[in-house]
């Protein structure tokens, strides 16, 4: 009898908890926020998602494995379960062109303090990163020292800097611009040259010239970090934040912002997202300067909200290491989304041709 009572009381207790949870979620359904794995997703959890969820009362399901192709698949098969998805700016532009994304409601999301060009109709910038050239500091010296590599021409110069290179695999994003700069095209004319088939081929040929020295083609940010940690290659292209984190883990790696490609990641909303309105409110919350100000503590990607530089408590050295810091921006070349929208497919075919040789 006692046993039964105990069991019953436990049942009542569980029932009560379930009821409480249910009543809580009537106010706001939990929204599904999808990001990437590794140090990137963890940085967003710590800087943005956890605090914003607490302060706004919006519950979130956090998932990993964000991808615009999966987003489009959900939209095309009418089974959208994601509300906010992290993506590269180019991926967002391509997905928007395919009709996979919801328009951002800028009466809810306040971007008045954002850098211009870091948000579009379909996505709101989350952080600024740079595609840089990085190298083994034991081999070529610390960044800024007299003999260290300084430009893409140095990346291609295997006589002055002999050693193994690594370049991007199976994806043309950020692969052609460095080749043209190494070939002597000024940064502000790169996309003009790339707007013709001959220009794309010129860039591909420049990479073909370097190919015998490319020991490995990298596929992901995690792989960039691993290759440098293991000393498998001596010079590599990649994302600045991954190299900073690899350096923290003991890798002998350094990089320069000179001639780097300035790009950004953003949050996009799949068309027909199940909790559109709540998700829009959450997007407005995480775009506030107060959360973005915490991002530099976890990964060296810069805020997209200018005000974050004013309110952040991060030390000066850390801020000056960010790609969107005013000191660094003039050194770099901004990515052109227009070019990617119009020429990416053709460029990718030609790049795959080079890789399959």
């Amino acid at each position: 009898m006692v046993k039964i009572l105990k069991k019953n009381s436990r049942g009542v207790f569980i029932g009560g908890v379930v009821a409480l949870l249910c009543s809580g979620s009537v106010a706001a359904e939990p929204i599904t926020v999808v990001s990437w794995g590794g140090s990137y997703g963890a940085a967003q959890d710590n800087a943005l998602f956890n605090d914003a969820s607490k302060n706004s009362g919006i519950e979130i399901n956090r998932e990993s494995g964000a991808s615009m192709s999966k987003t489009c698949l959900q939209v095309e098969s009418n089974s959208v379960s994601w509300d906010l998805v992290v993506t590269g700016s180019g991926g967002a532009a391509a997905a928007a062109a395919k009709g996979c994304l919801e328009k951002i409601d800028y009466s809810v999301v306040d971007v008045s303090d954002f850098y211009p060009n870091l948000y579009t109709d379909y996505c709101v910038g989350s952080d600024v990163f740079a595609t840089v050239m990085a190298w083994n500091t034991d081999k070529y010296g610390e960044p800024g020292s007299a003999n260290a590599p300084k430009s893409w021409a140095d990346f291609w110069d295997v006589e002055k800097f002999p050693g193994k290179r690594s370049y991007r695999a199976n994806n043309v994003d950020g692969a052609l611009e460095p080749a043209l700069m190494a070939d002597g095209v000024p940064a502000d004319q790169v996309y003009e040259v790339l707007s013709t088939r001959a220009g794309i081929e010129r860039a591909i040929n420049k990479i073909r010239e370097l190919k015998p020295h490319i020991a490995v083609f990298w596929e992901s940010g995690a792989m960039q970090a691993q290759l440098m940690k293991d000393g498998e290659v001596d010079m590599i292209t990649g994302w600045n934040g991954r190299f900073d984190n690899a350096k923290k883990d003991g890798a002998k790696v350094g990089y320069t912002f000179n001639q780097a490609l300035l790009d950004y990641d953003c949050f996009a909303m799949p068309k027909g997202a199940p909790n559109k309105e709540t998700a829009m409110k959450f997007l407005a919350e995480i775009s506030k300067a107060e959360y973005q100000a915490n991002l530099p503590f976890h990964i060296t990607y810069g805020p997209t909200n200018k005000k974050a530089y004013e309110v952040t408590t991060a030390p000066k050295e850390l801020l000056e290491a960010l790609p969107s810091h005013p000191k660094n921006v003039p050194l770099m070349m901004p990515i052109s989304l227009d070019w990617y929208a119009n020429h990416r497919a053709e460029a990718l075919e030609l790049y795959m041709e080079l890789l399959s040789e």
Partner: protein
Amino acid sequence: MPISPDIETPMLHGQELQSQKKREEWVLLGLSLPAIFVIALVVILPVGWLFYLSFVDGHGNFSLEHYQKMVEYKSYARVFITTFKVSALTTLICIVLGYPIAYFLAALPSRWSGIFMLAVLLPFWTSLLVRTYAWLVLLQSKGLLNDLAIQIGLWDSPVKLVHNMTGTLIGMAHIMLPFLVLPLYGAMKKIEPDMMQAASNLGASPVRAFFSIYLPLSVSGLVAGALIVFVLCLGFYVTPAVLGGGRVVMVATQITAILEHQFDWGAASALGVVLLLATVLVLYLAGRFFKFDTALFGKR
């Protein structure tokens, strides 16, 4: 002469047996219906859907643009050649390594063969991804193997064992080996040891006995195993992607690139269709040299 009932009865039995056989066939068909239904649902329908998608352009109209692209850009032909080359080489390595292993296992008394079989099966049960990354750790230029070889003076500077075709083949052969050894071992177990003794009684040298008795009897298992290895290799993604260092581009790699970066289901489907047709063609040609049904379904 009146027809004796002795003759009629067997005829009646014959008819009865035949109708009974028919009934049994219907029952068997009934029993396999769920499986047929599942296969139709999860294999034939989706493959048919992919086939359809490969003929549709971005605006939903009939088009051959995906197939035209495969002719226009040289990468597609190259990727198919690489895929078949890697698969054929992996199969060859598996045969060379796997045949002696299976022979050894089949020759051992069963209580020992069980233990050695575990050595074949244990890696088989380990995650493919784990084994692939383990090879990366072993083979890379500052990996265990290069370190060891340099320390004992085998070579002076690191040898490139991975991020190329060599590494891909090492990893794939290791992963595929059990698929060859298991059917081969089964075929070898069925060979009566007495036959080899009979051959030597009749004066055949061990080599002669092996080539004219043992090898022909085990070839059915060998062909079955080689076939499984070859076909599985054609669709491999992870191992060439990790150990090939971006230099070994297989069809699966290209399909991923198209899906991840262009969201183009039609183009990816077209690649899948061509891979399927090429595979069927290769198997058909190979089938003219070997009788696959005897290899796969046992002696008729």
